[in-house]
């Protein structure tokens, strides 16, 4: 009988930015079940929201997650605008879109770098993050901060961008196109990366629907849902772009979706700069009437869904925050089962989990003795060794980046 053991990952370890506790049950080298314990990052933000005024809440909510920092405030703001029924000025919509797409670029690049590390391509990690740095500088130029932009407010945006800022953004997108295309082509053409990511961590469309996943996790399984198209906000219904999907459902499919979305984001931003209308940036909402509303935006990881209830006072009565990772991470139950241990780290990474949004934690133990069997660091090392073995077997040169 094959021994069933549980693999420990966490609570703290390198390259997992948050404490996570995954419990993987393995028999031999195959994952047969998994579980997750979360709580480490729980900061009680929903309760804090009810103690802040409507206009103060975005500052709290942008700290739900440092990577989706523009998404959560905008989803909350849309929920409140749902209650108010106000019309956001056109210029504000374009400005919001620019910041959201810059966020998407920096987030997808962050993911690409970390994914590269997990499968042993540290060069990819360093190069992607090198080109990511100007994106953060552009965000700082545009909003005043590398992350935590505080750009949107109920009814509009807080700060305008002058022509010089818009020109700088446009130039930054031009400068990024070449490197991003180079990275995309290098990663997507590499036969060893194909061997590591294709048919790995498959989430079928049926399972995607059962777990109600969103974002690239859903679109990589052929489910064409995208809040930018389904419930348009910003300038998304005024610029040319498309919803990117792949049918395979494996890690490679999700990688392709993210790479294409990053390139699309460059185009969306350039269109917004080119077509930027004049006019006011703020509808001047002074009071939120009693009522309830739902707001959603497409964060890099998927749909951020917020629900707000107001009783006509100056503070929300209830604010529900649902981050995309909250629905994506449980789908590990479907995508991790049957995987080889060496493939688990990249499968876990493939939904681009943002634990601050959701907070999870996992461990593994030997089922019979209760002893610690393997650490996350061991599993990352296994994953990297598997890549090296494949490279040798296939007689392929390491990835060339210019």
């Amino acid at each position: 009988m094959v021994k069933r053991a549980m693999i420990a990952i966490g609570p703290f370890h390198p390259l997992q930015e948050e404490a996570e506790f995954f419990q993987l049950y393995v028999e031999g080298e195959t994952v047969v079940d998994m579980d997750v314990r979360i709580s480490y990052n729980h900061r009680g933000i929903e309760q804090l929201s009810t103690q802040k005024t409507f206009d103060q809440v975005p500052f709290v909510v942008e700290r739900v997650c440092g990577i989706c920092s523009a998404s959560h405030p905008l989803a909350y703001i849309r929920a409140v605008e749902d209650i108010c029924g106000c019309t956001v000025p056109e210029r504000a919509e374009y400005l919001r879109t620019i910041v959201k797409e810059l966020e998407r670029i920096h987030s997808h690049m962050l993911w690409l770098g970390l994914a590269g590390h997990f499968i042993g391509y540290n060069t990819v990690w360093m190069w992607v993050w090198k080109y990511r740095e100007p994106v953060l500088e552009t965000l700082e130029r545009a909003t005043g901060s590398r992350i935590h932009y505080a750009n949107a407010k109920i009814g509009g945006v807080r700060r305008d961008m002058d022509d010089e800022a818009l020109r700088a953004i446009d130039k930054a997108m031009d400068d990024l196109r070449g490197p991003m295309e180079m990275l995309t082509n290098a990663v997507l053409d590499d036969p060893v990366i194909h061997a590591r990511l294709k048919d790995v961590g498959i989430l079928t469309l049926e399972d995607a629907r059962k777990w109600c996943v969103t974002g690239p996790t859903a679109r990589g399984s052929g489910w064409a849902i995208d809040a930018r198209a389904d419930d348009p906000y910003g300038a998304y219904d005024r610029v040319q772009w498309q919803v990117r999907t792949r049918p395979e459902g494996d890690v490679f499919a999700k990688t392709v979706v993210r790479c294409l979305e990053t390139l699309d984001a460059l185009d969306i931003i350039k269109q917004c700069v080119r077509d930027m209308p004049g006019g006011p940036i703020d509808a001047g909402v002074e009071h939120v009437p009693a009522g309830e509303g739902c707001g959603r935006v497409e964060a890099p990881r998927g749909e951020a869904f917020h629900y707000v209830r107001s009783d006509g006072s100056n503070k929300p009565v209830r604010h529900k925050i649902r981050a995309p990772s909250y629905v994506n991470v449980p789908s590990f139950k479907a995508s991790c089962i049957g995987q080889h241990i060496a493939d688990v780290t990249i499968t876990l990474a493939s939904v681009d989990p943002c634990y601050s949004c959701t907070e999870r934690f996992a461990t593994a133990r030997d089922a019979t003795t209760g002893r610690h069997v393997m650490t996350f660091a061991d599993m990352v090392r296994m994953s990297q060794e598997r890549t090296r073995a494949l490279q040798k077997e296939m007689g392929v040169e390491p990835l060339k980046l210019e």
Partner: protein
Amino acid sequence: MTQAATDPQSASPGGAALADRIAERLGEMVFARTDANPRRTWLSVRPERVREAVRVLWEEFDGRMATASGIDVRDGIEVQYHFSFDRANLVVTLRVLAARPETELDSVGQDLPAANWIEREMHDLLGVRFRGHPDMRRLILSDDWPEGVYPLRRDYDNANERRGPSGAMPPDEAQG
């Protein structure tokens, strides 16, 4: 992407028309309806029919459960299941009351895996008991959080629980 002729979400144009069809199909399961705007509809559902109502939205109308939220109201905990009908740009929220003192409802998570975690969270934070939930373990609050204390309830006073007992890690937990 082409849409099948039998696609439940595209058979009628627009969210408002779809909301009408859903309300009609749910029939007497629903006792009140609010349309905040053409994209947002709230349907108040009888507690004993919530499981059935959710199955209709999910299986018959291809709804995607975005999330659920609970709020402490005078008569109990109001639980809302938010369903998105993406192609029609419509969110239909099923509003159901877990009346005091029991604050219990049938678990929807036993049918729809996507509801599994959020029901555990509502149990942690609001004390709603979900009958039939396959895995009602603590999800979001710490291991040492006292039982019976629900932070999102109106009568919660957070002065006491903040510090918590400091202590060593549980002995059965591995180090990363």
